[in-house]
């Protein structure tokens, strides 16, 4: 609404208790004085209103700070907000998910594989280690229990030079240990291996034949069989765990396999479904998430009025929030926001759902 010069004359006359002509005279004198002083001094300061000054032959006006704050009271104290992509700025409820499901340290601490966690990467080293330990123990046991059999391992590379699996290296210490007395100490290890057959060939064939086959069986077939058995067991174990998880996800409660204990299933369940998003314009009032955005519709100095407005929004189904904001002049105001959004874009998209005058008279802020 525009207040014309004539309207202003009436107001001045009414407040000052004078007629319109006299009010008009005072108004003209007041305006002339400002123009004159600004032209002479370069500026003219009017207390409680502002400062006039000439710039580029044009009269400019800078409002008084207190007046400017009063005029802008609704938005006072707001700071610029930076837009970050939703993927870069995660909300609290999203951060909770990886803490539960993707903590490798926590997974490694668990002594036994849990259902649903059997496929986790940290589990694999644990299985490998157990296999290697078993093989090593078995090799050590064989070498200690029957030195003769260990000595015969030196024959194996000669008999089957082409077949040299990596596992052969694990039994090499036993070979070296037994062939050392037969070889000279100054020779290199590579030469030792070449000389080993000549040492072995000197042994009588009569007792060599039966002894030659048995260590192959004991030392290679047995670990191989153990590995195969372990692999089969692990396969069925993981397959069973997978079945358990599938069964637990089904709505129909079928008896799960006995492999999966119930408390372990209970630990995994919260990880699977995403928690319901607390974002949106409408819905039940939720605790405000740090870093999310809300649409401010009111800035009210009176707390009682502010609470009434907030209740009114809630009755209409909005997620309404009321909080107190501190203004630059030290005073406080109550602000009412509706909705809670992950990004500014989402908040702006929801503006169209607001009725007028809020649709065109609002602002978005970040909840800090």
């Amino acid at each position, binding site marked *: 609404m525009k207040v014309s010069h004539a309207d202003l004359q009436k107001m001045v006359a009414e407040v000052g208790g004078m007629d319109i002509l006299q009010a008009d005279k005072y108004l003209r004198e007041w305006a002339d004085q400002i123009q004159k002083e600004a032209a002479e001094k370069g500026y003219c300061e009017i207390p409680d209103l502002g400062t006039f000054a000439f710039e580029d032959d044009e009269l400019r006006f800078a409002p008084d700070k207190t007046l400017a704050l009063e*005029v802008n009271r609704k938005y006072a104290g707001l700071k610029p907000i930076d837009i970050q992509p939703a993927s870069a700025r995660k909300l609290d409820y999203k951060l909770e998910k990886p803490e539960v499901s993707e903590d490798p340290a926590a997974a490694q601490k668990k002594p036994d594989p849990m259902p649903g966690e059997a496929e986790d990467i940290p589990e694999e080293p644990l299985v490998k280690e157990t296999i290697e330990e078993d093989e090593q123990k078995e090799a050590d046991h064989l070498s200690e229990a029957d030195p003769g059999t260990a000595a015969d391992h030196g024959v194996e590379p000669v008999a089957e030079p082409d077949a040299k699996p990596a596992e052969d290296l694990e039994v090499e210490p036993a070979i070296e240990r037994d062939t050392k007395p037969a070889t000279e100490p100054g020779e290199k290890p590579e030469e030792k291996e070449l000389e080993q057959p000549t040492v072995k060939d000197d042994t009588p064939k009569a007792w060599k034949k039966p002894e030659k086959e048995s260590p192959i069986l004991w030392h290679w077939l047995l670990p191989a069989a153990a590995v195969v058995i372990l692999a089969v067991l692990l396969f069925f174990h993981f397959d069973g765990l997978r079945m358990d998880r599938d069964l637990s996800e089904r709505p129909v409660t079928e008896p799960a396999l006995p492999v999966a204990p119930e408390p372990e299933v209970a630990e995994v369940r919260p990880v699977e479904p995403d928690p319901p998003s607390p974002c949106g314009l409408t819905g039940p009032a939720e605790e405000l998430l740090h870093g999310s955005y809300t649409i401010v519709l009111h800035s009210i100095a009176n707390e009682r009025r502010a609470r009434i407005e907030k209740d009114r929004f809630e009755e209409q189904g909005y997620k309404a929030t009321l909080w107190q904001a501190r203004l630059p002049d030290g005073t406080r105001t109550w602000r009412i926001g509706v909705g809670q959004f992950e990004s500014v874009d989402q908040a702006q998209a929801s503006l169209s759902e607001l009725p007028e005058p809020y649709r065109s008279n609002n602002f978005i802020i970040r909840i800090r």
Partner: protein
Amino acid sequence: MDKTQSDQHIVSIINRLLKNHKEVAIKGLGTFSVEHLRQSPRQEKDGSIMITPPSDVIKFKPEKEDRS
């Protein structure tokens, strides 16, 4: 009423009108108004995008013809 008092009355009236977001025209000086600046995005030098908060600001449009 002396001139000082009348000046105070004039200022207090204009002050009150502006607080109520009214437009005030004064002959021989210009027109005061309150303009609403909407919330708008702005790109910073470092490439980040900031959204400036909305604000209500006082504007003044001088009467050029009255300048002697």
